[in-house]
């Protein structure tokens, strides 16, 4: 029998054991990628400052309390709140460096680079009783990662054939209700964080692309 014909039988033996099944189910019920929920423990003083800020914010006309707020690290203004429809120049933080004797080519695997000289960072703020979810798209060789309300755009070296080109990608962020109705969580709003690479610089623009209609 050829190797590939045995695959079905052999790989078919990979199953979740009872313990793992329990863990997964428990995780789903608790919506355990609640690592995405911004439930961080903060010292009392910081908490008080945040509370004050929130109070001030609530006083601002137009604040609805059901918005996902995205902050971007910028060179000029530090953490800057992204305003819908406004393109913001991002800070490209120097990150990975080549060690002596290493060549960029050493970092290519299956055609993808594993070397990212720069990264741009975003921070998310989610309203009370909400969570967020995201769908990533890939921007050329770059990688986009997300952990606990922090999104990092890892910028790979530009391939020579792409020199001078404007490159664009976007990731979708969903604001999701914390309530489970009929086994599901409802999406409240959808945003697109448009990422652009132009002349060696990185930009971001936030767009609200979907909103739940009240029935």
């Amino acid at each position, binding site marked *: 029998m*050829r*190797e*590939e*014909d*045995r*695959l*079905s039988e*052999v*790989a*078919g*033996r*990979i*199953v*979740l054991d009872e313990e*793992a*099944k329990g*863990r*997964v*189910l428990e*995780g*789903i019920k608790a*919506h*355990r*990628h609640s690592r995405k929920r911004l439930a961080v423990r903060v010292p009392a003083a910081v908490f008080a400052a945040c509370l004050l800020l929130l109070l001030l914010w609530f006083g601002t006309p137009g604040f609805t309390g059901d918005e996902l707020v995205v902050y971007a690290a910028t060179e000029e203004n530090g953490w800057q709140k992204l305003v819908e429809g406004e393109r913001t120049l991002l800070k490209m933080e120097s990150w990975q460096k080549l060690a002596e004797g290493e060549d960029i080519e050493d970092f290519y*695997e*299956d055609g*993808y680079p*594993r070397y990212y000289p720069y990264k741009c960072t975003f921070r998310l703020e989610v309203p009370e009783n909400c969570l967020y*979810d995201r769908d*990533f798209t*890939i921007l050329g060789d770059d*990688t986009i*990662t997300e952990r606990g309300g922090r999104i990092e755009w890892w910028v790979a070296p530009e391939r020579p054939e792409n020199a001078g080109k404007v490159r664009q990608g976007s990731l979708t962020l*969903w604001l*999701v209700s914390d309530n*489970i109705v*009929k*086994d*599901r*969580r*409802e*999406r409240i709003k959808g945003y697109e964080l448009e990422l652009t690479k132009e002349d060696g610089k990185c930009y971001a623009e936030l767009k609200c692309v979907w909103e739940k209609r009240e029935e």
Partner: protein
Amino acid sequence: MDKRTDCPDLGVAQVFFEYGNMLYRIAFVMMKNAFDAEDVVQDTLIKYMECSKHFETEEYRKAWLIRVDINLCKNRLRFYKNHPRISMEQLSRYYETKEDTRLMDALLLLPEKYREILMLHYVEGYQGKEIARMLKMSEASVRKRLERGRKKLREIVGEV
């Protein structure tokens, strides 16, 4: 007009019991470790829970779950480029004979693009056309990858 057919809206627990093992198997082969595979299954089902999609047939639901499962694996793989390879201890949970372990080890040593296609074709029983639709690629590419994947698999089994 309402396009609903007979395919019922299944709760997440039902979907898990129906497809949990399949999603886990695919994620295990893609991620090469049980911990990430478990996480991916969990995230896939949370995505299912959050999306308010109605599936016209059970096959659509299954294909959607596989696509999300594979995409989540790919996202993680890109993040964990330096993730360690699977340890033999994890594989030995499932295999008793050397031949079986060798075959699985060879499958896991294949590049990602061949692994996913071989899994979908030989283990989950999908045809080239269905895989092409699921992974959004041409049927010719699927056939080529299947052919190369098979060849590489045989080569590796011979070497391991």
